[in-house]
Every structure is written in structure tokens, then in C-alpha cells.
């Protein structure tokens, strides 16, 4: 199996920058791509802040400074630099049309043997594979946030994904201390299909005035031993993302059990998006 030293990371949002940081801290060269210089500059700034905070919290990074680690991250607005990539993780917005444009281009740019992993929690891997001439070398990797702290990744095998591609993906993950759990391609995979339904039902409980958010979460935390209740988890993920994900499940299965709670829709319309907006089910 070929070495996977140069990693393309497409999309420098929260997931892309977490991934770039984690990969660079594990000695990889990272090609971090996004559409604008501003978001790339912001990503580098945020990675530097994260590394420095980790230094403060006692992570020594083998004696490397934040700047030394960042020197392994090459930023660009041009997908053409991915010609050099041994493995690509795409983290663009969860929108099929946006992803379509990217896959059509990188399929032309990258070497034929390069594997592409779509970091998605919602979009069909088989459908992404169909955009390229290499559906056998496309798979899904659902990383969790914050990437450097979450060791387990949901790995999704598309209809045409080969065992060799899965092996390459597992090798890639092991290179930065991660493990994969392999599941088949299906809307929401395992994680979102269960989590979104749980969050949506918890929102219905608030909507139906069965219990306030703090009590709903308390039952999960104190009775079930979860680290965080479903509503605090929703606030962390972002209620706009939650609504989008549940909408995708609803459209994919055409099953009314995935209908989004009206309260959730109203909160999103009102700008109560959770932690990032200062208020969701809880205040921050």
C-alpha cells in the first residue's frame, strides 16, 4: 500500500481546520483548500490558537512550536495543488451541488489511485461516487467535532467502494491515531439516523411542554450516564444543521417519523442556532 504523506483537505470550516491541525500535528503535509483567502487566513489563525491552547493544557507536540506545526499546512484557493495529494478528505458545506463541483474537478486533478473521503454526516456516498470516474475509491468519513479530540470515525462504504479503499482509509486514520467503524451507505448512516431522531423527539418534548430542556437533558446525563444531553448536543452542533439533517432524513426515507419538530423550525427561523449564536435550547 502506498504511503499517505500528503493529505488534501478541501474546506477550511470547523471540520476542515480541525482535521488539518490534527494531521499536521501527526507529521503530515496538509494541503488546505477553500474558496477565499479570508477563510484560509482565519483557519490558520484558529489552528494556531488551538495548538497554543493545547500547549497550555500540557500537550507538548514533540517539542514543536505552533509555527513549526503550521509550516506543514499549505493553504490555497486552487484545487489544482491537490495533484500532489496521496489522500483527500473533502469537508465542504453539506450541499450536494457544492460537493458536485468539487468532485468533478478533483477527479480530473488528482492521481487515479488517490482515494477521496467525503466528510459528511448526511449525503449519500454512492451518489458522490457517481460524480467521478473512481466510485471504487470514494468513501465516507464522518469525523466528529473537535477532530483532534475525537478518536473514532464513522467510515461509510459506498455501493462501489472496494475493500482495498477501506483498507487505505483505515491506514490513513491510524496514521493520526484514529479508528474507524465501518458502516454501509444509508441516509444518516448510523450516527445521524439515531441522533437526529433523538434530538427531534427531545425538541417535541419541549414543544409539548412535557419537561423543560434542562430536565430532559438531566435524565440523559444522570440516568443514562451520557456526557451531554440531546438538547445540549443539538446546541453544540447548531440547530440549523440539526434541522437540515432531519430534513435530509425526511426526504430520503419519506417517512413521517423524521418530520422536523415545529419548535425546531421556529428556533432556526428566529436565529436561535445554539452555542454559536449564544442561544438555543440553553443560553451561552
Amino acid at each position, binding site marked *: 500500500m502506498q504511503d499517505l504523506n500528503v493529505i488534501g483537505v478541501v474546506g477550511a470550516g470547523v471540520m476542515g481546520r480541525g482535521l488539518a491541525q490534527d494531521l499536521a500535528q501527526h507529521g503530515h503535509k496538509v494541503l488546505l483548500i477553500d474558496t477565499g483567502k479570508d477563510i484560509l487566513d482565519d483557519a490558520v489563525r484558529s489552528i494556531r*490558537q*488551538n495548538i*497554543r*491552547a*493545547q*500547549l*497550555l*493544557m*500540557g500537550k507538548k507536540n514533540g517539542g514543536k*512550536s*505552533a509555527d513549526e506545526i503550521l509550516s506543514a499546512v499549505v493553504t490555497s484557493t486552487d484545487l489544482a495543488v491537490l495533484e500532489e495529494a496521496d489522500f483527500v478528505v473533502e469537508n465542504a458545506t453539506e450541499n450536494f451541488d457544492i460537493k458536485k463541483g468539487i468532485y468533478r474537478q478533483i477527479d480530473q486533478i488528482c492521481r487515479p489511485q488517490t482515494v477521496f473521503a467525503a466528510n459528511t454526516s448526511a449525503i449519500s456516498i454512492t451518489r458522490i461516487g457517481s460524480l467521478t470516474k473512481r466510485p471504487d475509491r470514494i468513501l465516507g468519513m464522518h469525523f466528529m467535532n473537535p477532530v483532534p479530540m475525537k478518536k473514532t470515525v464513522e467510515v461509510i462504504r459506498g455501493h462501489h467502494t472496494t475493500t482495498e479503499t477501506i483498507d487505505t482509509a483505515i491506514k490513513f486514520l491510524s496514521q493520526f491515531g484514529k479508528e474507524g467503524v465501518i458502516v454501509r451507505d444509508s441516509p444518516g448512516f448510523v450516527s445521524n439516523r439515531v441522533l437526529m431522531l433523538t434530538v427531534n423527539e427531545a425538541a417535541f418534548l419541549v414543544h409539548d411542554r412535557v419537561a423543560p430542556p434542562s430536565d430532559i437533558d438531566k435524565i440523559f446525563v444522570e440516568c443514562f450516564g451520557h456526557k451531554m444531553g440531546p438538547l445540549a448536543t443539538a446546541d453544540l452542533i447548531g440547530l440549523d444543521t440539526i434541522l437540515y439533517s432531519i430534513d435530509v432524513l425526511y426526504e430520503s426515507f419519506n417517512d413521517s417519523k423524521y418530520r422536523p419538530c415545529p419548535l425546531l423550525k421556529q428556533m432556526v427561523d428566529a436565529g436561535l442556532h445554539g452555542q454559536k449564536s449564544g442561544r438555543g435550547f440553553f443560553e451561552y
Partner: protein
Amino acid sequence: MSEYKQIVRQFFSRFFRTDGLDDADDVFAGGYVNSLFAIQLIAWLEKEFSITIEDDDLQLTNFSTINSIAQMLGRKVGVVVPA
């Protein structure tokens, strides 16, 4: 120095209750904070006091208590770092 302590305490109060927190209490060991707080604390100190915190300064002994942060500020504020 006491002015620094007051400003730092005000910053802390945005994240957790500070009544009952002694200037010598270790906020990192006390479970008050996480790495997100550390990110914001470093960024805030650099901006608020116009200082540069070097990698070598990034040790819990400099950041764990209101006293230790005030001492670090006493060393750094007004010191011009060569470009």
C-alpha cells in the same frame, strides 16, 4: 497588580461563577474550564493588554490562578518585544 487581578476576575466571570473563587485557586485543576476557555483566555490576554505570549510562556504555572496571571502580566505589560 490588584487592577490586573480585578480585570482577570471579570473575564473569568463570563465563563463561570467567581464568587467564592480565591485569587490563589487553580481554575484548571478545579474543573472550571476546558481547552476552549484556554483559547479564549490566551487571545483575550494578548489583545486586552497588548502583550505577546510566547510558546515558552504557555505553562499552567503562568495561567492557573488569578495571582499567576497577574504576575505574568506584571512581567509583560509595557515590555516591548523586538519584532
